[in-house]
């Protein structure tokens, strides 16, 4: 590798050089720098189409990087302080998948909290790994699941000493962190890998007032949504590796499912964003923290709403809290988070990140301006004035301990029947049901269906949550495994 500094962006520079050489393209893509698709070029811009190119010698190849992509990945690894980083163009889903597929083979166990993203369980359908769920503590008032207690992880290890890996969210969608350092130590003592879903934690690597980044706390692999707090294009992510994992093997795993024509728009956005984080990360997140702290105080001053923060920290299931997350408890105004989310969009032209049955999450980043924060606060204040309701009859979310009957892969591919929701009680579900976002399954393949779960699904549907997963898009019916238990 050439001697690079964080001021540089090797992939950006290579693309600029390629443009200057005015190469005549007799390769794909067929739009040929946009000329073959004027409507698309008009919409996206000539600059954008001119770098939507294929791998070529001067631009390296993501499947087998030897020059500028390798250099850009090395710079990313240095910026995040790890031995190796992979640029991912299939979203953080592909990075999560690569972690699970690297750590586990068919029938092998992975210890994880139930509030993981669907991509984790999807990966288990692909490779046949078996989940061992640790009950993430639940905050009963807020109705959100928290982190894993260290003692609960230790217990799971004791009961499953043959597990290959432990999986943590760092943080959850709502900003809650587990004690990753202690869990990493436990994992390593027992010869297990620690895998971290850091889809919502890219910024942890660049600011000392934020929770500890997983790789610094000892994780062996971490999946980061650079396109969230890192500022890159949607679908571009990073997979970080520590010294316990073989870089070559991970690349083979990634290449099982990764496109052989990865988008250079996504790749260069990772390169540029990495440079920006390395050079300006601290001041960027100073600004974000300031905006969120301001909004949190103003929202709490409106009354009834609760925009929570570090005061929740309890040293274990809430080991730390990401203060850049603007999570707001709304049930106290008699509205589900999803109802406030819908009102913000329909009545106030404000698009929030997610609403669940009790909370609203507004995603704040470097792209936000103080006046946008004023709009959000003002709209929340107006929603309380105009729409607040009596709180009775609102469902309190409780942790529903999943009854895992078999592994996700076995259930997903097993002979199955489709039944109306009400007739599924006691049967084993062979598909997912979730609200998206956040994309945390209510039911995963292999889990037994209970009246409690059906009640939750009914309530979430009634409140307007966007439900996904089942083959039946209306979620009137569910696929269950043939035969009763």
């Amino acid at each position, binding site marked *: 590798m050439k001697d690079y500094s964080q001021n540089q962006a090797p992939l950006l520079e290579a693309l600029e050089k390629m443009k200057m050489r005015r190469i005549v393209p007799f390769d794909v893509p067929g739009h040929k720098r946009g000329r073959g698709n004027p409507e698309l070029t008009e919409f996206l811009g000539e600059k954008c189409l001119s770098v939507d190119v294929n791998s070529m010698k001067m631009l390296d190849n993501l499947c087998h990087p030897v020059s500028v992509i390798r250099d850009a990945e090395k710079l990313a690894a240095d910026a995040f302080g790890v031995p190796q980083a992979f640029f991912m163009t299939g979203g953080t889903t592909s990075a999560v998948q690569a972690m699970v597929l690297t750590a586990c083979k068919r029938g092998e166990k992975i210890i994880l909290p139930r509030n993981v993203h669907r991509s984790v369980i999807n990966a288990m359908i692909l490779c046949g790994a078996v989940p061992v769920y640790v009950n993430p503590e639940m905050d009963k008032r807020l109705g959100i699941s928290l982190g894993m207690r260290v003692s609960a992880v230790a217990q799971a290890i004791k009961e499953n000493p043959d597990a290959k890996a432990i999986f943590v969210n760092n943080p959850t969608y709502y900003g809650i962190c587990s004690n990753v350092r202690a869990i990493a130590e436990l994992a390593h003592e027992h010869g297990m890998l620690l895998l971290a879903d850091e889809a919502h934690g890219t910024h942890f690597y660049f600011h000392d007032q934020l929770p500890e980044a997983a790789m610094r706390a000892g994780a062996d692999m971490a999946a980061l949504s650079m396109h969230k707090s890192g500022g890159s294009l949607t679908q571009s992510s990073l997979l970080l590796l520590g010294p316990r994992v073989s870089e070559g093997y991970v690349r083979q795993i990634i290449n099982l499912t990764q496109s052989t024509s990865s988008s250079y728009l996504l790749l260069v956005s990772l390169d540029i964003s990495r440079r920006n984080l390395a050079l300006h990360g601290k001041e960027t997140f100073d600004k974000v923290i300031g905006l969120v702290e301001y909004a949190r105080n103003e929202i709490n001053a409106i009354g009834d709403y609760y925009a929570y923060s570090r005061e929740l920290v309890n040293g274990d299931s809430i080991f730390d809290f990401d203060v850049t997350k603007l999570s707001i408890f709304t049930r106290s105004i008699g509205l589900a988070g999803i109802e406030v989310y819908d009102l913000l969009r329909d009545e106030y032209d404000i698009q929030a990140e997610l609403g669940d049955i009790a909370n609203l999450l507004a995603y704040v980043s470097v792209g936000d301006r103080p006046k946008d924060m*004023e709009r959000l606060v003002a709209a929340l204040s107006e929603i309380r004035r105009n729409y607040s309701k009596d709180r009775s009859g609102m469902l309190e979310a409780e942790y529903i301990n999943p009854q895992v009957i078999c592994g996700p892969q076995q259930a997903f591919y097993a002979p199955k029947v489709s039944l109306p929701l009400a007739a599924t009680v006691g049967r084993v579900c062979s598909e997912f049901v979730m609200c998206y976002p956040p994309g945390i399954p209510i039911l995963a393949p292999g889990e037994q269906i209970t009246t409690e779960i059906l009640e939750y699904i009914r309530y979430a549907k009634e409140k307007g949550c966007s439900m996904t997963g089942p083959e039946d898009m209306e979620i009137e019916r569910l696929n269950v495994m043939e035969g009763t238990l």
Partner: protein
Amino acid sequence: MELWFTEQHTKNVRFSMKVDRQLYSAQSEFQRIDIFDSLEFGRVLTLDGYVMLTEKDEFIYHEMIVHVPMCAHPDARKILVIGGGDGGTVRELVRYAAVERIDLVEIDEQVVAACKEYLPQTAGKLNDPRVHAFYEDGLKFIRHQENEYDLILVDSTDPFGPGEGLFTREFYGNCFRALKADGIMVNQHESPFYKEDAYAMQRAHKRIVESFPLARVYQAHIPTYPSGHWLFGFASKQYHPVHNVDFSRWEKLGLRTQYYNTKLHAAAFALPTYVEEMLRDVE
């Protein structure tokens, strides 16, 4: 030498005036501020390249934003002006002896400072003892007011740039809350003519209709604004803008005006058919 100022009224339409000399140019925290002398319109204030006022025709805008609600409200004493850093609206308001307090909330202190120096015609009354200036975001200021004002005048820039938040439902809702039980809000309501202005105009009307029991629109003819045809919104908790208005009360005040008069007041609410239809579409 030929020096011309050009404003793009739409992507395909330009409005130009010959400039004698530029007096002031600065980039504030919020916008670019320019002041120059033009041969036809006298001194001109532009923000981000858009004409805010000219000495020659500002009287139309300022008289219409102030005297219509001041005539319709029988007893307006406490008034909030949001935006209006050039001082023209305040200048018209301080002519009323009954007005006790005017709160001026302007996000950009630099606009006020520049106008005080270069535009005494509009800014000359900003030092009236009844005027209290607050340099902050209007949306933030209003959020903390409840049942405070008889009148709110939203003298804003366009719905993009710093004035964006002043065209939102949350802002109008907060204004409703900040007004007394018989309060009136009047706002700069864009133009019905060019497509983009018309879209902003319709959206603003829709948001006001959702927030106030009574929402009407009135018009004025302002030569230096795009198309020259400009609208104001009149939103009220109780008073109708024309019915039962005691016009003689206003006439007895003996205020001399150049554009506004009580006959025009009533007539300004009669709108062209195409404008009525655009408004009806969103009601």
